[in-house]
């Protein structure tokens, strides 16, 4: 089928979302299914179809989602209800909306490289600590079934 001329194509909007926690590394497909599932659950099949959403860009911390114009509010509400991607707890926080991908990419700040600090003992359990910003520290405990994560700050660790 011949492609529509640009003037007849439906208008699109792009929404920039920040993925939390910081170290999550999801691929675009996983994110798409999570957001689409949330949209279907919230608005039903016809509502989700009207969004005509797709994930156009993703990296470990950021995602850009495309949707039809005037359905940004619906999309943001659906994205707000995402609390799990794959098997990991996570949230996507919408930061900005724009008409072009380039404008949103300009808004992505440089990421802070995570640094491994060392081991910390909390209530006789050993956690490995990773600094994710100047103040924030994530503590990881490898279990048999899953990974336990605690979210602390440097001051918390100093007090321990």
């Amino acid at each position, binding site marked *: 089928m011949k492609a529509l001329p640009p003037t007849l194509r439906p208008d699109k909007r792009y929404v920039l979302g920040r993925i939390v926690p910081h170290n999550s590394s999801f691929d675009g497909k996983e994110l798409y299914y999570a957001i689409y599932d949330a949209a279907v659950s919230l608005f039903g099949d016809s509502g989700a179809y009207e969004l005509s959403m797709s994930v156009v860009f993703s990296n470990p911390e950021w995602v850009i989602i495309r949707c039809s114009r005037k359905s940004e509010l619906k999309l943001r509400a659906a994205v*707000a209800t995402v609390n799990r991607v794959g098997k990991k707890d996570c949230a996507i926080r919408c930061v900005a909306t724009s008409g072009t991908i380039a404008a949103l990419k300009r808004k992505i700040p440089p990421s802070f490289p995570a640094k491994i600090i060392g081991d910390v003992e909390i209530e006789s359990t050993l956690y490995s600590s990773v600094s994710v910003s100047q103040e*924030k520290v994530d503590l990881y405990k490898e279990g048999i079934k899953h990974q336990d994560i605690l979210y602390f700050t440097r001051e*918390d660790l100093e007090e321990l």
Partner: protein
Amino acid sequence: MVFSDACIFAYPQGNTSLRRMALEAKYLGIERIVCAGSDYSGDYYGVSVLSGALLRPSDFRDFGKLLKKSKKSDIIMSYAGDAGLNRSLISSGKIDILRGIESAPKKAFDDVCAINALEKNVAIDICLSAITYQRGILRQKALISYAEILKFHRKFGFNITISSGADSYIGLRPVREIEDLCSLFGMKSEEVKFALNAVDNLLNPYSPAEVIG
């Protein structure tokens, strides 16, 4: 306006320390958090932290016992129950926030409760975790009950608080996202902002001017 998250759960109830919660709340535009089960009240990273006592009474007599046992807190919250319990809790004036109205039975909150809530300055809480973490019929019920509360609020003018009910910083919600979620049951942006400021109204209730001397 001081935007507040009316109920969060910090470590050890959740997996995020109170300091980290405050830090993340600051980045999300929240200036005050009420931490249930914590006895700390003060300031972290410019975010005001209030201690909260969250009670789950089975009847009003049980509420009295739980209230005596609980530590002294800035904000006292109680889970809602049937209509009788809710009326007693609100008219006693001993609680600041009535939570969990979405899981209460039908007609648990009526016009009598609404009038009492206005008189006794008791706020009704809208917990966003009921919308974000639940699916299907449970979420539909939550949306219906919040829409009903909103109707009563518009008619009688009592306070509504908004809480994330987060036990991890992942569950905290920025102000814009709160507006998006509240729009699902018909709450307008101004109403959301008023509700986010409601904890301030509970701490400093409006009273008519008095002539001192």
